[in-house]
């Protein structure tokens, strides 16, 4: 590549670099700045030390996030497998069915669940007609997790489905041919080869689940404050940008750690499969 080409390439990349600088790097620095200063702009560690009061919502966020992610994975993996192995026409219909809820507004979907789950809501009314219930469903931790699973499930299905369609079907036949039964084929061939889809699915469900703030307020009735709700409160209600920034910073670090562990786990598994 000559110099002129190199320059042209840089020129093409420059809008992206400028964009990233303004909207990614600068805000990160601002978050960091707010987190270690007080209202007057003086340096302080108070924001960080105050975090200890919020260990419960932190842990609850992580816990709910993990549970929602696992449920999503359990539902999404077989579903993606079924979709990927259907006829082309069925496939496109099913993918659209998975995506349609994503076209609807997030708030609307959550409101819909409220009317469904309420004590005198749609589900309990129907159950009552056939003589079951009523069940108390709204304002429970289960409802919050349900909201997460419902909202983020497509983000688990789509990457797994994509990897599965790309997988060479001959590999499955080759494994059968070598004597492996269905279970063995899934365990030793399909799953290892779709792991990358699983990892991106987990990332795409876990991160928004941990940091979500709206679902818990609407479906949890305020009794299951998640860290996202606390952060929102700092900015919207208490007007304490500094503490909100500190909370965000720690949440971000926690997510990064989780993802690092996750990727490490994925790599280790991969390396483990290849031994002599």
């Amino acid at each position, binding site marked *: 590549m000559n110099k002129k080409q190199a320059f042209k390439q840089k020129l093409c990349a420059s809008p992206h670099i400028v964009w990233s600088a303004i909207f990614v790097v600068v805000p990160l620095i601002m978050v960091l700045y707010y987190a270690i200063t007080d209202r007057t702009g003086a340096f302080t560690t108070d924001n960080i030390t105050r975090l200890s009061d919020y260990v419960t919502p932190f842990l609850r966020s992580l816990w709910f996030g993990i549970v929602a992610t696992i449920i999503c994975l359990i539902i999404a993996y077989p579903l993606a497998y079924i979709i990927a192995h259907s006829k082309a026409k069925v496939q496109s219909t099913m993918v659209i069915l998975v995506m349609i809820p994503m076209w609807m507004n997030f708030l609307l979907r959550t409101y819909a669940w409220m009317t469904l789950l309420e004590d005198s809501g749609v589900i309990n009314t129907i159950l009552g007609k056939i003589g079951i219930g009523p069940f108390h469903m709204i304002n429970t931790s289960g409802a919050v997790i349900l909201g997460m699973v419902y909202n983020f499930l497509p983000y688990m299905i789509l990457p797994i489905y994509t990897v599965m369609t790309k997988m060479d079907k*001959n590999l499955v036949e080759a494994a*059968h041919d070598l004597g*492996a039964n269905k279970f063995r084929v899934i365990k030793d061939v399909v799953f290892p080869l779709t792991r990358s889809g699983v990892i991106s699915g987990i990332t795409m469900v876990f991160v928004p689940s941990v940091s979500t703030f709206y679902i818990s307020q609407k479906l949890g009735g305020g009794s299951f404050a998640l860290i996202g709700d606390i952060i929102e409160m700092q900015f919207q209600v208490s007007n304490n940008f500094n503490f909100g920034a500190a909370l965000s910073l720690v949440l971000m670090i926690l997510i990064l750690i989780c993802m690092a562990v996750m990727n490490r786990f994925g790599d280790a598994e991969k390396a483990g499969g290849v031994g002599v």
Partner: protein
Amino acid sequence: MKNNVIIDLKNISVSFKDTKVLENLSMYIRDKEFITLLGPSGCGKTTTLRVIAGFLEPDSGEVIFEDKVINGVPPHKRQVNTIFQRYALFPHLNVYENIAFGLRVKKMKEAEIKEIVTEMLELVNLKGFERRNINALSGGQQQRIAIARALAVKPRVLLLDEPLGALDLKLRKDMQVELKNIQQRLGITFIYVTHDQEEALSMSDTVVVMDGGEIQQIGRPEDVYNEPKNAFVADFIGESNILDGKMLEDYKCSFSGATFQCLDKGFASGEQVDVVVRPEDVDIVSLDKAMLTGTVTSVTFKGVHFEIIVDIGGFKWMIQTTDYEPVGKEIGLFIEPDAIHIMKKSKYSGLYGDYSSFSDELEHLSDIVEEE
């Protein structure tokens, strides 16, 4: 095993939606035989292989393995293994683990596995490749690993689906010899699928020529080449001039407006037949000794010989000769009785064997491997 027959296919029919892929196909395969299913893409050869492997259940008919009907037996319980067209090696496993896959399924001891893998790598000339990554191997090497992986589980029958299709010509020739050697050394039945007639002729004990989901001819390579059953076989295997002719009496026939001695008998006198003359069996002679005369319309240098297209009464013949003849020249042709092969009329009559639209380019295009 009756008569040493390891696999017996009886009246197999397969159709996908409304298309019939195999129609009432019956054939048997002897133990330790190298048998090749040969035909153009879409002829049903890969489908036949998949029926034997168990990936596909026939709509009707019986698949018999060692005197037992195995319809409905899943692939992983059949004693046959497949070499796939694109190898289908597991990309997440290294060479060792790929070959060991079938052995691990069998729950063999690690020491035993190691022994077999080493032995197999030696067999395919890739000693010391155990820890290599699959993606770091060349096409030829991947092919060898695929062979090693399939042979490691000691199958009774090995199914090979155009295994050399993705390799370049030189490598293909080498692998043909190697595969044949492996087959003879291990004494395993090979069922080989290809659309390459040269490959089929040079490797097989038996060739099965297929078209349109039906078997056109089964026989030893020499027989299929020298005595094709119909115009399709004559055209598909090698080059052929196929002419519309008439049997006058035993050992005497007429075509292209002349009468010829031949070695065929048993036809009704006056019966319409297809006559095959191979391009290499036509001699160019001076006009006064000629049985037929024609005008040269094109000459192509092929290295070993010239390929000459001659117009004889509007029918274009192909002749392979070492003598150069210029375009436009009138030449005389001579055909020995043993160079003439008579075939009964079939649905393929008139479709093949005329070189008026012949071009090398088309020939090559039809060689491109298509997925069935």
